[in-house]
């Protein structure tokens, strides 16, 4: 339950190894600019991974999270067409995300359905609605403010030249800090572990399990909305297939981060280390001209190896 464990150390070592190997092997990788730019590719996924980490620790899952992102991006587009300003559009995204998450939550808590089935259904439903609304069209021409959020650096915002931290990455770090403190330093956070480890025992010890589950699904919807604002700002357009398949990427990050898929174990430190590890790895391989699909193969293999290794080591330790 602690935020700093063996697995986190392993991830940190892997991250150091990755930086070392690619730092030597790939010229131009270890420059501040390259490292700063690499964060653009995983900041939004990292936001989704944070929400999924909480859900998976509590024994639930949300496969519809990337589809909610698409709906939120769509809501921004429609709000813009209706004449809303940047704040109105952001509000539209968050309301949509909250409602979509609440639908998942109601189905899981009120009707006692397994969250994997519910969110496979809503994944199809939400993505389908985005398709129905947009067809093969796209919405673009978003206000400048979003492009700044998506593409600029913190230094440009506050007027310090050397501060080349992208705003997106800063948002991710702030979110990670808030989620991490909530999970590891508050009563609510400890209760999530209790719910994930044994929901029935948790209920009997007076935790309003369903209320927490509901809150987590709404939270996932809101985080998807935040990611939608960032991503829509960064690429400047909304298509129905925006962020397609990202739910699996984000789940891979969470699992690699040491969160147990059966719930009750995991940390935000581990999740963030896995986000960095996978993000930097993808970026470095990209610099080495390896195509995305081969990278996904390596990541898939990595996911399995990361699950198998600890069990092999455990077994050895037990017999010795």
């Amino acid at each position, binding site marked *: 339950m602690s935020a700093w464990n063996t697995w986190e150390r392993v991830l940190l070592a892997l991250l150091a190894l990755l930086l070392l190997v690619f730092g030597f092997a790939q010229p131009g990788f270890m420059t501040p600019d390259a490292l700063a730019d690499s964060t653009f590719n995983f900041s939004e996924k990292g936001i989704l991974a944070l929400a999924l980490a909480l859900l998976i620790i509590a024994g639930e899952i949300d496969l519809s999270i990337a589809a909610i992102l698409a709906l939120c991006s769509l809501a921004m587009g429609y709000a813009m067409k209706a004449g809303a300003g940047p704040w109105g559009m952001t509000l539209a995204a968050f309301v949509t995300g909250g409602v979509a998450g609440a639908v998942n939550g109601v189905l899981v808590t009120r009707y006692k359905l397994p969250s994997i089935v519910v969110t496979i259904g809503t994944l199809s439903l939400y993505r389908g609605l985005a398709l129905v609304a947009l067809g093969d069209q796209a919405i673009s021409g978003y206000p400048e403010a979003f492009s700044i959020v998506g593409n600029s650096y913190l230094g440009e915002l506050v007027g310090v030249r050397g501060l080349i931290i992208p705003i997106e990455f800063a948002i991710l770090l702030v979110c990670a800090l808030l989620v991490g403190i909530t999970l590891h330093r508050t009563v609510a956070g400890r209760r999530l572990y209790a719910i994930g480890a044994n929901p029935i025992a948790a209920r009997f010890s007076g935790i309003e399990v369903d209320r927490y589950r509901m809150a987590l699904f709404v939270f996932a919807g809101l985080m998807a909305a935040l990611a939608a604002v960032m991503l829509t700002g960064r690429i400047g357009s909304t298509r129905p297939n925006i962020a397609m398949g990202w739910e*699996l990427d984000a789940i891979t990050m969470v699992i690699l981060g040491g969160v147990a898929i059966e719930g009750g174990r995991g940390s935000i430190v581990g999740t963030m280390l896995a986000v960095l590890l996978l993000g930097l790895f993808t970026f470095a391989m990209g610099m080495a001209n390896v195509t995305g699909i081969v990278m996904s193969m390596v990541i898939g293999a990595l996911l399995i190896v990361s699950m198998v290794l600890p069990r092999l080591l455990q077994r050895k330790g037990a017999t010795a």
Partner: protein
Amino acid sequence: MNALKSIRREWLLLAIIVAIALAVGVRAPVFLTWRNGLDIANDSAILAILVMGQMLVLLTRGIDLSVASNLALTGMVCALIGKAWPGASVPVLIVLALALGALLGAVNGWLITRFGLPPIVVTLGTLSAYRGAIFVASKGAWVSDQDIHEVIKGLPREVWLGLPALVWFAIAVLVLSTVFLKLRREGREIYALGGNPLAAAYVGISPRKCLMRVYTLSGMLAGLAGLLWVGRYSIAYTELAAGYELTVVAACVIGGVSIGGGVGTVAGAALGVLFIGVVNGALPVIQVSPFWQQAIAGAVILISVTVNARAERRGGRQILERKTTTLDNTQGAVA
């Protein structure tokens, strides 16, 4: 009692399908012709084959997310072999597709049983890994119409006894699955394991063998589906059938197969496939944008699982059974 309920459920689903077909037929009589029926059957055949494999896995409380990647990888390998070896014949290709698919499925089964890993994570990993392997095998190139071997293209287009070969394949798989699940000991063990793994272990069922078997079978059927898919659409490329695994799971859920394991029939799953086929076939006929397909499938999944859950609760799980139902709930969340 349990059997009676599931029978009633299947009749209800059948009635809904017939009602949809009739309603569409009233607006567009062309929908109720034999020819259109064959089209729908043809479109549903590959899905039916995949659904049978997925159902076996779901019955054991697992899930196989790698089926679409397995399908695409096997399809690509068959296409490449057909391209490189003009002397290939149908039986050889079918055996090859079955063997390769079974091998890929066995890898899933081995990882799950040998290391005790959760199926959803393992198959999520192999989903990416197999998909990447297609790119490596084909070097990213498409195998297009003129390079697909004649016999691969010809296979789904053959007509035997008035029915397309694809439909015969699906029928064969459905019949074999029924025999396997109803009459074979190995099939009954799957239900036992999914219904209560602990009790199954006590009566001497080896979970390891049983799981290994279902994942291998699921992979084998995915391999067969891959060969047929490449033949039917006469193209093979890296992104082939990407995301199709969710449609397969959806058809199972609509057909009443429980994600929580132990519940599901061949007839129900087949009706789930038919439902998706009829809806997809009906939309263009009544001039609804095909973009609605996905949204409707999603809504139907949600409705059918909600209805299922209510029926189960009304069926009166007794207080005595509470322990197992609560176990089911926690296991369901895991799966």
